[in-house]
């Protein structure tokens, strides 16, 4: 792996930042690769579009800001409008069918998945939506091993919720895997 630049975006309550942190933790703690994660703060974070940047790489990561992301995940329309255009030509744009209506084509692979609906249908708890998204992402793109994410989750969530999160992750993973190239 030579380096991934990702943007996670959505709205305040969707757990976008947690998803990014989990990815970073999995990479750094469980795979020994480097990661930096950063996020927008301030008024924007209190209602408007939230964004978290993450870079994964084998070598040192100096400049931590994501430009031309390989992957952009958008979980709200506003986030899609703001951040999708930044995508690197040939990159991957992942959106949720429930929240985002794709407006115009960009020079990237555009993947719309019914992640929210799936979570709601299969689990009934929107709280694990972000974990499902993470699953879909790992399914789609071979960023790190699923086990690493699951370990990171197990470390973060209370024991009672590990099962729930694991299921959400797998639901997403199943959605994403078929589309992996």
């Amino acid at each position, binding site marked *: 792996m030579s380096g991934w630049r990702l943007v996670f975006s959505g709205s305040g309550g969707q757990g976008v930042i947690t998803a990014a942190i989990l990815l970073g933790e999995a990479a750094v703690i469980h795979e020994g690769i480097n990661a930096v994660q*950063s996020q927008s703060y301030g008024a924007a974070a209190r209602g408007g579009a939230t964004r978290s940047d993450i870079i994964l790489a084998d070598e040192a990561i100096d*400049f931590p800001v994501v430009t031309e992301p390989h992957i952009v995940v958008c979980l709200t329309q506003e986030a899609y409008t703001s951040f999708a255009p930044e995508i690197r030509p040939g990159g991957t744009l992942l959106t949720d069918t429930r929240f985002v209506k794709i407006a115009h084509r960009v020079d990237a692979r555009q993947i719309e998945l019914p992640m929210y609906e799936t979570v709601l249908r299969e689990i009934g708890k929107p709280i694990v939506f972000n974990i499902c998204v993470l699953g879909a992402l790992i399914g789609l793109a071979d960023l790190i091993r699923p086990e690493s994410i699951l370990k990171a989750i197990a470390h973060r969530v209370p024991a009672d919720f590990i099962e729930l999160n694991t299921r959400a992750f797998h639901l997403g993973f199943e959605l994403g895997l078929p589309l992996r190239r």
Partner: protein
Amino acid sequence: MARKVRFVQGNEACVEGALYAGLSFYAGYPITPSTEIAELLAERLPARGGRFIQMEDEIASMCAIIGASLTGNKVMTATSGPGFSLKQEAIGYACMAEIPCVIVNVQRGGPSTGNPTHVGQGDINQARWGTHGDHNIIALTASNHQDVFAMTVEAFNMAETYRTPVVLLFDEVIGHMREKLLVPEPGELPLVERLRTSVPKDVDYHPYLPREDGRLPMSDFGGEHRYNVTGLYHDMWGFPTSNPKMVSELLRHLIDKIDNRVHEITRHKEHFLEGARYVLISYGASARSAIHLARERRARGERIGVIELQSLWPFPREMIREKCREAKAVLVVEMNMGQMLAQVRAAVADPEKVFLANRVDGKLIAPADIKQVLRVIQGRGV
């Protein structure tokens, strides 16, 4: 590897470093982007028998840690620009009364309320000159979380060694960004403990009489030695004086104890510096971009290197002069209007070859921004 790997914010790396160094008392008042330091310590300190207190403001916080330092604790407070301004009077007190303490300033965009959730590096000169009157100060910084940890430990060590406040000048990017931190094992990094007097009970103890090595042993408040501490000029017992000779001697002591040890105190790192024709001087988050650029250019065979300052005050004048001697051009990379630039210009033999690559709009300066300045210097336009 046995050491604990963590994926944390810079603010958390600072907390880990402080606890490693032996922090046992924290007083603070929340302010973005430093607040996580207080939040984490509210949880961690009592769990190890230490004490955390949220004071009514930043002034009180600064005063409280000075009080707690006097009882023998390693103490810290954390803030950002507006709070740092408020603490200045009491920081001067700590300088004058020679109280070991650590003040963290996670910088945001200033002046005033400024650009509170965005990065800035505009408090460098304030750290040096923010309080009234002549004085001296040690200020450290870091560009990555491993160094945030290490420099925090250094800050506590220096505070104890020199009986002085030490400022940790981080910035919003470093404070909030998450990356890897390897927490060292106990014993791995050297710690300086409070030097306590060996003067026995009932023998006259002089809190302000330096030993031959220049250090001033302390005695905990509540211990066997009763003495006075004041922000006035004072004699070796700590009692006020305006005797001209004593006034002058004390001030010179406060200045010299740091200026005479610049080599001992200052810290820097060199990246790709051998034979560099272009020298980038940077610190904090800006240094990451400088290093990024140098790494990239070196790969292409260009002779660009970086001096990363890990200490800002006292300014390592001689080192900079020395290392920049052969450079064709020197670029100071920072997120302010040239605060370190002025120091570098004053240090080098040929100030005309020193340029500023900066950004003051709340965004992290990018390698591309530095490239642009480089192009101009090289006569290649923008």
